[in-house]
């Protein structure tokens, strides 16, 4: 299916409504191949159990640096990643999900968080700049939205490469993010923007910051744009559709389960996409396979962390 430039799909008004089925379409999970459904779930599990383990490591005082957890938001990067393999990828400070979903090496991230010289930044950067450049995952410098013009530069300078750039709903407000959307539209660069919209900048909700939507603005610049919830099949569908119509942007409503940084929680997440996804997998007959994957990843993560912690104590 192709969409007309500038016409947003999904509900148009009101923009600030958030719900677990915002923009949902019937039958997507059923139509998706089981392999792909399970591949998305596998990535979701990896982010979730890795980050829950990171949280535990901070509670145990094994991690001293500030941590920005992706728990609750796993589906976003997971679903985009199954479609967009081999692209350059830029995430933001809450980037463990992007790192892990796009094939960043988990042990290098664990080591970084543990302050080890074998970490992806040698212990210099901690959580925000998690990157794996050999695998085309570029570092974030900690200034929100700063990765957006850099992504445009990469797309401009490397014809033939597709680039994906994730940013937050807060970062969307940065001057240089908006200017870059305009530049990318003008130059028709093969860039897919993904706004991970958890409705929060630190603890300030979107309504207190602006009354415009990212999608409206992006369309004004001439980008293809959709505004949807974080259902993995819906994200997978739109990523596949828009991959042929770049530049484009997907604004994805999602929920952060823990505090902006650190281990705390206000239990304010409006929905649990992880639970909803498991329920859907059951519905489409993949319950047992999904359970096996979940268990496998849990064990993998636990073993990995034990091994890295042992290595550190041996130093």
């Amino acid at each position, binding site marked *: 299916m192709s969409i007309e430039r500038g016409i947003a799909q999904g509900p148009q008004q009101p923009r600030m409504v958030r719900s677990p089925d915002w923009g949902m379409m019937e039958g997507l999970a059923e139509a998706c191949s089981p392999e792909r459904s399970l591949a998305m779930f596998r990535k979701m599990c990896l982010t979730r159990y890795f980050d829950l383990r990171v949280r535990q490591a901070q509670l145990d005082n094994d991690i001293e640096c500030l941590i920005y957890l992706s728990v609750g938001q796993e589906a976003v990067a997971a679903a985009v990643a199954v479609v967009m393999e081999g692209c350059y990828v830029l995430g933001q400070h809450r980037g463990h999900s992007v790192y892990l979903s796009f094939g960043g090496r988990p042990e290098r991230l664990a080591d970084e968080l543990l302050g080890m010289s074998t970490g992806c930044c040698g212990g210099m950067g901690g959580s925000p700049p998690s990157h794996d450049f050999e695998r085309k995952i570029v570092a974030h410098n*900690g200034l*929100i939205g700063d990765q957006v013009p850099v992504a445009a530069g990469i797309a401009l300078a490397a014809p033939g490469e597709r680039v994906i750039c994730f940013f937050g709903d807060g970062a969307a407000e940065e001057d240089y993010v908006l200017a870059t959307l305009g530049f990318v539209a003008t130059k028709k660069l093969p860039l897919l923007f993904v706004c991970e919209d958890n409705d929060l900048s630190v*603890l300030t909700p979107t309504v207190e910051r602006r009354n415009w939507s990212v999608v409206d603005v992006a369309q004004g610049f001439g980008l293809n744009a959709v505004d949807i919830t974080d259902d993995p099949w819906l994200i997978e569908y739109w990523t596949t559709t828009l991959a042929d119509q770049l530049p484009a942007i997907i604004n994805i409503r999602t929920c952060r389960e823990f505090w902006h940084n650190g281990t705390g929680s206000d239990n304010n997440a409006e929905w649990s996409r992880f639970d909803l996804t498991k329920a859907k997998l059951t519905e489409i007959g993949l319950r047992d396979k999904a359970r096996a994957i979940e268990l496998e990843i849990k064990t993998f993560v636990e073993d990995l962390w034990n091994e890295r912690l042992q290595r550190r104590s041996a130093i």
Partner: protein
Amino acid sequence: MERTVAETIRDISREHIAKHNGILLGQCLTAVGWVQNTVPAQAEGIVELPMTDVSGAGIAVGAAIMGRRPIFIIRFQSLLWLNASPIVNHAAKAKSVFGYPAPVFVRAIGSEGDSTGPIHTNCFHSLFMHMPGLPVCAPMTPNEYVQIWNWYMTHDDPLLVSEHRRSYTSRQEMPDQVHHDAHITIYAMSAARFNAVEAVEVLGHRGVRCNLVHLLWLKPFDLTQRVMEPLKASGHGIVVDSAYEIAGASQSVAYELMYATGCPVKAVGQADRSPGVAKRLENGTPTTMRIVDTVEMMLRDV
């Protein structure tokens, strides 16, 4: 009981809004702890800016032109690199180039340690000292804060206030320490003042007597008697600061002092490398022991 620095800032802000039609602008002010309790917990007079780190400063400058004497809060000095342009290119030049004033009070907050790492380990007042039309100060005590606020309210210049989180809970005033028989004079700025106080004590136990001169104003830096005499008498000086040393406030002040007195003066600031998050890679304000070592090295060379 005396107020803390944070309470002082909050009281000043509250009164400014209530009595002078003042406004306060910044990002994420109301949601998390009211900026370390330096912002009054109220809606009135407070403008939540979107995450616009370039235009945010421009909005504050516009409000300054209209006489609202805005307090513009930058939660991390690392964000100054983005916010700088409207401050230095409009507010700082307004009086001399455009002929009207743009008095914006820029609260730029420094921080370090606690894994702030390469992003938010920051103290960047030096780069603003570079620009004409923009006085720069670094108050670390309650009274100093009142003093610079009064200065701002009685002048029509913008003011870059280099704050530091380390000062917020402090109630102490920090008087100069001057002795007629001191071996050396330490000039201290920003959060380096807290370490300098400790260093003076450590050195005292080791038989080195130090003068300690606290510098509230980084620019203009006035070579007053208070500043010059202790150096002339002791013959040696060091200038310590939380910001980077190279082309920084410490080197600039050291140069002024050296040229004016002919005494050797060494600058000691943040080392020339990016700070890391891991404890072993941190790089912030010169530590107490680095100040001690530098003093001993200078005196050894005599």
